[in-house]
């Protein structure tokens, strides 16, 4: 019987983190990028909770709740920007939003 250890959690977390980073860097659709950001944030949450369980205290879990709260705010702001961009450019492609090019 395979026992689930902290290492397993960490592998899962790293996989999710890597998928999230890939999504942010490689995808052009802004919705996909926002979702990838959620993946990254949640991979961190898994990490925090895994270590919380390992050490037997609640600090990591409380920290994860804060992260979820911030992620909710981030998603709201990100979707607000997305809607504004869409109204302006009629697209959600990030390649079309390069006005800050130096």
């Amino acid at each position: 019987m395979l026992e689930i250890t902290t290492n397993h959690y960490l592998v899962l977390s790293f996989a999710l983190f890597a998928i999230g980073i890939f999504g942010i860097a490689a995808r052009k659709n802004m919705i996909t990028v926002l979702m990838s950001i959620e993946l990254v944030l949640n991979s961190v949450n898994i990490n925090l909770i895994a270590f919380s369980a390992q050490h037997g205290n609640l600090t990591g879990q409380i920290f994860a709740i804060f992260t979820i709260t911030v992620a909710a705010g981030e998603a709201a702001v990100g979707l607000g920007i997305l809607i504004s961009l869409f109204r302006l450019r009629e697209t959600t492609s990030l390649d079309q939003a390069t006005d800050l090019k130096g």
Partner: protein
Amino acid sequence: MKELVWLIPVLPFLGALLNGALLRGRISKKAAAVIACGIIGLVAVLSLLIIGDYLTSTEGQSPRVPFERDYYTWIPAGAIHTVVGGVRNFNVGMGFLLDPLSCVMLFVVTFVGFWIHVYSIGYMAHEDGFQRFFTYLNLFMGAMLMLILGNNYAVMFVGWEGVGLCSYLLIGFYFKEEFPPYAGRKAFITNRVGDFAFVLGLFALIANFGTIKFTELFPKIAANRTLMEGHYLLGLSLASFIALALFIGATGKSAQIPLFVWLPDAMAGPTPVSALIHAATMVTAGVYMAVRSNVIYQLSPGVSLFVATIGAATALFAGTIALAQYDIKKVLAYSTVSQLGYMFLAVGVGAYTSAIFHVMTHAFFKALLFLGSGSVIHAMGGEQDMRKMGGLRKHLPVTARTFRIGTLAIAGVPLFAGFFSKDQILGAAAGHGHWVLYGMGLLTAALTACYMFRAFRLTFHGEFRGTHEQEHHLHESPPAMLWPLRVLAIGAIVAGYVGIPLAMTFDTVDLNNFDHLVDDVLVSVKGIANPEHHTLGFELILIGASIAAAGLGIFVAWRIWGRRRGMAGEEAVVGFYPPGHRVLENKYYVDEIYDATVIRGYWAFARGLYRFDAAFIDGFLVNGTRNVTVHLLSLGSNLFDKYVVDGLVNLTGRLLDGFSRGLRRLQTGYVANYALILAMGMFALVVFYMVVLRRG
């Protein structure tokens, strides 16, 4: 009483202050005249009292001790290096000196000055600028009294310049006309030439003796004979240098060759001014100064002879010019120059007391003659040409009588003042063996008699030659003008009796009081002998020669202009040799020669300097500097600015620009790029953490 001597110069200045500033334009002519004449009258009385006090208090002293007061230190110059006595303090005090010489001058100036002031009331009554006239006249008296009372050369010089200033102001009194201001400037500038030399002489005295106070200086000079006779400058001994410098100063003030040209032109001023300043007082200042400095002249026989020669030459030269003048004042002006020449002849031959004696007698009779001519001009309504006069004695009896006395006095007719003084001068010239100078003096005496009688005959005798209007206007002058004439006429008769030469009393009674009085100011120098006394017979021959010369002059004048021939005689003279007369009438063309040489030379010099200024200073130096500045310096500065300063600035800019051009590449605007960089950065940090830090 003599303690009040400071009041004598101060009071006239006060009068000038009152009339010229405090009460200017606020009082009537009468009040102005009362102030001016009253003050001079007061000064004259005060002077007499002070002179009396001084003479009685020094009675019996031989020589009389001068009375001297220093009132305050005027110029505290501090330590200076002197040849005699090394380093010493040199301070000039404002002080006055009473001695027989200043007493004589004081008497003459205040006495004649007062009567000329009185005369001016009448003469100037109808003129504009009445108060201004009396202001200047008072100012002149103050300066003149300062000149003769000063106890050192500096105070004397202040008076000397003061009278020069007043002379200038009064010559140019009628400043609305063209000529008088010109004449005033001419007088002033000519005098400056002499003053320059005078000041040089004073500097030489200060540098060598460290004092210019008469009572300290003269004994020092007498005691340092070897220094005085040693070589100083320009091949001259110290004594000669100083004597010459002072004499050149005197030629300016006392109108001697070559600086006499201003005096005849000075007649453009009102006639009382001519009488007071340009005949009786100011022009004799040079003689006074030379006599005051007698010790210096005694130590320099060469310069003394030069002075005598210039004096005799001036006397003769001016005398001949006077013979051919038609302006009555010009005749008197050249006569004054001529008589001043006599005085310098006396100074030159060492007859210092005779020079001062002649100053005194001349002051009386020449002031009288000028005032008489003023009376004539007044009556003629401003006419000065003797060709338009004639027969005036019928209309102006008092003027004619007094003028005749003046003429006799100046001609040297025995028993009149001029005879005694002139005879003494000629006697001194002959006594020292200067026979050429004596001959010139004697000839001048004859000429003097001749031209004065010519003037007298042309003016007062014969038929009236002016217009009907002028004849109708003829009138004797008011009493304010006649009384001075009468008083001065008496002076012209009796002034000579204070100095009767020993020979004239046939060596029986010594009546030459004047000589004994003024002799006291002569500084005796060891080794310089007094002139030997001549025999009675020799003296009598000289006196006879003087009388003969005067007689000859009068006789010739009588033959030509006498016997009612008047202008007919004049025409005969002119017709005798017209070119000669023309030369004399035009004053030997001296003014023209000066104009052609000195004045034009000066202008040419000034023009040369102007060209030098324009071409060299402005053209070369100033513009050259500008060219160097503009074309070289500013060019260099410009280049430095452009390439070094601006270069640095641009370099900074370019560096930043290039750097930021590189940095700008990072800002692609693609969010994906940023994310990638973020991730890579994070990866790098993790690697750094794991590889580098863990290992240590």
